[in-house]
């Protein structure tokens, strides 16, 4: 391979990509739009706590105040008080699309002091089943603790809840590595699927093959372009996330291999899809079928840990998951062993797909392909098939 020739072709490929509106949009504008939109939505939530609306009808009792303080201390819910004048809390939760509402009845403190049973009312929204489950767990836990304390007992088994890395990560923190993974996926995949099928139809690969540029040099220049793009979008998204939305992301050298191997993986898949497809339309369809599930189910916009349990194995089956998990491990948690495991998985996949793509993608004769012909012979006899 002649590196000079590959680098000579590189600026031309960059021009071709930048002058395509789709290329610029997918490469730079779309990820920036996403971080601005999602950042604006999630930046002010402060944490991933589930909001819990509480109607405290026993406002003056110290025990009800203790109960609410206990709920806040769980770190799971964020208590906000609603006025008793709202009426039926169940309707209030439904009409305001809240996750859950809790009613502390009048005489809550006095009843407990008399060691009599008291009933709390918890309304949960069925459309937020996962979050509602977290609220139920928190309320149950605080109630059990209070029961024990009133009964004069003390807990024998306790635990300390510590956040890994010593920091509570918010959605915006997860969003930055997620969107970096998104841009590593989308730009190479979409462009390569389109480019490889269109260039094949327009015989542009044939044009290049008749120059001294080799297949390997072309591939190297193409990969280099997408690695540069991945680096640029990493800096851009990290900068925007940090400066505008206070994301806690640290650029570390551990992220660098992901920004090299990731583009190799998705360029290879895009090239393979475009090469094996008969038409650009079919290639586009295959590209979408591959890209869209990964785009939404790999932890791009929300951490996989918050997915319902049945969806988690689906996420684990998607290639982008390992890239984003590795980026989370390197950019957020500084978890070297997880990052290296993910890197190993992404590297093996990248090598496999790169091998398959280079086998399928040929400069010269398309193996075994027989071109159709129109018979123009006078006697209607069928001749050989070629032109």
């Amino acid at each position, binding site marked *: 391979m002649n590196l000079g020739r590959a680098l000579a072709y590189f600026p031309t490929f960059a021009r071709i990509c930048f002058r395509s509106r789709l290329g610029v949009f997918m490469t730079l504008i779309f990820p920036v739009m996403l971080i601005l939109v999602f950042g604006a939505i999630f930046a002010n939530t402060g944490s991933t706590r589930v909001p819990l609306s509480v109607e405290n009808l026993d406002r003056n009792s110290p025990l009800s105040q203790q109960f609410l303080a206990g709920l806040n201390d769980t770190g799971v819910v964020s208590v906000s008080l609603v006025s008793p004048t709202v009426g039926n809390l169940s309707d209030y939760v439904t009409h305001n699309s809240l996750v859950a509402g809790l009613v502390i009845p009048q005489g809550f403190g006095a009843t407990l002091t008399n060691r009599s049973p008291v009933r709390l009312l918890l309304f949960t929204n069925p459309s937020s089943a996962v979050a509602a489950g977290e609220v139920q767990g928190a309320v149950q836990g605080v109630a059990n603790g209070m029961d024990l304390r009133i009964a004069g007992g003390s807990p024998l088994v306790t635990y300390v809840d510590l956040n890994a890395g010593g920091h509570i990560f918010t959605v915006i923190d997860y969003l930055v590595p997620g969107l970096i993974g998104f841009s590593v996926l989308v730009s190479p995949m979409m462009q390569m699927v389109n480019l490889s099928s269109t260039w094949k139809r327009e015989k542009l690969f044939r044009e290049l*093959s008749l120059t001294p540029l080799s297949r390997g040099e072309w591939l190297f220049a193409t990969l280099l372009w997408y690695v540069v793009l991945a680096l640029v979008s990493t800096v851009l998204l990290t900068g925007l996330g940090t400066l505008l939305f206070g994301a806690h992301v640290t650029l570390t050298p551990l992220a660098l291999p992901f920004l090299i191997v990731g583009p190799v993986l998705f360029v290879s898949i895009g090239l393979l899809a475009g090469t094996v497809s008969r038409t650009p339309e079919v290639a586009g369809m295959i590209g979408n079928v591959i890209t869209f599930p990964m785009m939404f189910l790999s932890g791009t916009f929300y951490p996989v840990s918050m997915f319902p349990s049945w969806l988690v194995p689906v996420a684990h089956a998607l290639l982008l998951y390992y890239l984003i998990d590795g980026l989370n491990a390197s950019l957020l948690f500084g978890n070297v062993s997880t990052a290296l495991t993910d890197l190993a998985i992404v590297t093996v996949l990248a090598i496999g797909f790169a091998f398959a793509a280079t086998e399928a993608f040929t400069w010269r004769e398309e193996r075994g392909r*027989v071109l159709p012909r129109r018979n123009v*012979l006078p006697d209607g006899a069928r001749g050989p098939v070629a032109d």
Partner: protein
Amino acid sequence: MIRLALDAYDRRRAKRRNPPATLSHEPAQEGGSARVRSSTPVIEVSHLEKTYGKVHAVNNISFDIRAGEVFSFLGPNGAGKSTTVEILEGLRARTGGEVRVLGLDPWSHFDQVKTRIGVIPQDFHFFPKLTPREAIRLYARLFNAKVDPDEILARVELTDKANDYYDTLSGGQHQKVGVALSLVNDPEVCFLDEPTTGLDPRARRSIWAFIRRLRDEGRAVLLTTHYLEEAQQLSDRIGILNFGKVIATGSPRAIISEFGRPERIRIVGDPSIASRLKPLGLPMTQTDGEVEVELHSKNDALPILQTVSTSGLRWESFSTVNDSLEDVFIRMVGHLEDDTSTTPTRGEVAT
């Protein structure tokens, strides 16, 4: 090696004599410039075969092309022309036979061969968002050629479009970009696969003049074309392919002479003229108001004229008729391609 060195010398000498080829609207002056033809072939094809499964696309064909020669392939769709050209360009592997381009096997020495050939493919396309100047610069960098893009653009009359994106250019200008790119590496052999298809007559004439100049500079040109008139005007030799076989090869005149019918006298007039000419014993065909009599020799013409003149029958015109390349092609291969939407009024065949 000696052979190649001699060819290279021939080409250099030709370049000294002639300015570089340019696209021009002026028809090339026949014999107006020195012709350089080497006796040693730069393309040698011997018993070439190409099969796709059970299909014989190219079936045992042999020919050669010398430097300073324009060789044209004619044949119906599916005859194997483009397959043959692509094998010579090194883009397709052959099934059997021997092929040499500039003394090298184009498949196994693809990297060496492609630096010395120029190709204008059928239906040329390029990157839509590159300008002609950028395209030439790219090729110059890849071929490591010291060329002035503006000079090449001037040669193909694209100076005023140098900075326009390829997708804004017309069909003729697209083809000119292809021509420009094929010149960047100063090729010794040019493969032109239907270079004038879809061009208007002005652009077509301009490409013709350019092809003549390529030949005059001592380059070998392998041309495939839809247009018989084009082949007849430009070619030193023609190969007619059918069903993957070369069924005729030679200069246009030699092919017409060998495969065409003899010269004929055509008389338009009274249908009874035919019966008056019968005693002369010459082969004759008669259609509506027309009689054609084949001449065995020039001396047969006089008795025919005398017989008609003395018959007292009405006649409107006498003319001599010779077969054109088109007539010969139709007789040998079948009929003309039916798709004539973008073609001249006559002289087109399917390729």
